[in-house]
């Protein structure tokens, strides 16, 4: 190989390495990348042994971890408790929309109102969300009691054929779950509404996650049946709670644990309502949720002193 060819090969390798590092840097938020991305690339290329075209495993993992940590730290705005509560209410409203979505053909108005709650909460319009939650809570409680209310809903309400199951809305339990779900939403929104500063506007695309939640069979409130979709729900819950644990450990910020509380409260209501019929899988499910929620709550306090430095 001539000297010119060797230089050319080295340059190509360096270019490929830089492209791969830039791909890994996508773990960081865009504005952070714009400010420090070139500096990172310079340091990465200086520290990489000559001749390498692929980033090392340790460096790659550190970049992804650092990027996620920066994103988590950047997502924490304002006082932790109200912000965490706001996020928790958004999660519960989203789960509620996901639960109602398979029944859109039978109760389209209520599904639209539920989507309205998600949008209102995501935009920080808590006072607009309060009457909507009251309406939906009353309607779903009436459906759970087997009574039409306000309109001529045919009860029980069955899902649209597209979703491929036949579980009636709240067919697995009485009115406790819808009462607690919307009670938690209402109380949380009232707390946020009396605060002098309204919650911040969050990314409005949250509602797009509702079909994903709907695919996890949320109307089948227990997991005893062990269907793949129920297990997917358990996996999603566990993944989000693990994220809360990690975020709390990485930043020492309790808001991620606070965000988990409203959803866990609703799940406790499901446990109470179905206490006579719960199986071992259900007990294991709730034990897992409880353990992860308690861990997410405890970890930030343990991490805070160490994080100062």
């Amino acid at each position, binding site marked *: 190989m001539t000297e010119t060819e060797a230089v050319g090969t080295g340059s190509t390798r360096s270019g490929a390495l830089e492209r791969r590092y830039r791909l890994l840097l996508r773990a960081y938020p865009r504005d952070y990348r714009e400010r420090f991305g070139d*500096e990172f690339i*310079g340091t990465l290329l200086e520290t990489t042994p000559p001749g390498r075209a692929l980033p090392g495993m340790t460096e790659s993992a550190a970049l992804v*971890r650092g990027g996620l940590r920066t994103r988590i730290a950047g997502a924490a705005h304002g006082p932790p408790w109200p912000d965490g509560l706001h996020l928790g209410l958004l999660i519960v409203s989203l789960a509620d929309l996901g639960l109602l979505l398979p029944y859109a053909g039978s109760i389209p108005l209520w599904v639209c109102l539920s989507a309205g709650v998600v949008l209102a909460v995501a935009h920080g319009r808590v006072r607009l969300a309060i009457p909507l939650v009251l309406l939906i809570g009353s309607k779903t409680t009436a459906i759970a009691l087997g009574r039409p209310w306000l309109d001529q809903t045919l009860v029980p309400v069955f899902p649209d054929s597209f979703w491929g199951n036949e579980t009636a809305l709240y067919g697995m339990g009485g009115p406790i779950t819808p009462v607690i779900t919307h009670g938690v939403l209402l109380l949380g929104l009232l707390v946020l509404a009396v605060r002098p500063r309204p919650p911040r506007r969050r990314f409005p695309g949250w509602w797009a996650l509702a079909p994903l939640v709907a695919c996890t069979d949320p109307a089948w409130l227990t997991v005893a049946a062990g269907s793949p979709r129920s297990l997917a729900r358990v996996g999603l819950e566990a993944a989000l709670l693990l994220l809360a644990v990690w975020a709390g450990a990485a930043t020492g910020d309790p808001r991620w644990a606070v965000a988990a509380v409203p959803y866990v409260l609703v799940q406790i209501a499901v446990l109470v309502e179905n206490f006579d019929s719960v199986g071992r899988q259900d007990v294991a499910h709730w034990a897992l949720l409880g353990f992860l929620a308690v861990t997410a709550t405890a970890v930030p306090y343990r991490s805070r002193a160490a994080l100062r*430095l």
Partner: protein
Amino acid sequence: MVPGMARRSPPSISEPTYFILAALLDGPLHGHGIIKCTLRLSENRIKLPVGTLYGALDRLTANGLIEVDREETVDGRPRRYFRLTDEGRHVLSEEALRMRQAASVVMSRIADPGSAFS
């Protein structure tokens, strides 16, 4: 015992953080310089990945232990030089004193074998 020690427990800092702060004792350094210096000071035990280094530098800056001294552009790429603040120097020296006291507990007994391990 070192005078003043054990009156209050200073906040513990991780070993990589300790060596990052120690690397800045002799003056401002940029990212690659800090990595090389921590490797040398730790006798090749601590090789900081770049993602870990800049995360630590962000946290140390946010806590007021270091600050950006200046920015330069080398080969078309920007570089920030970091330096210790007075608070950072204080925390580092407190940690060094704490470790010296902790080490002395063991070293004095090893030096006098009959006292503790017999």
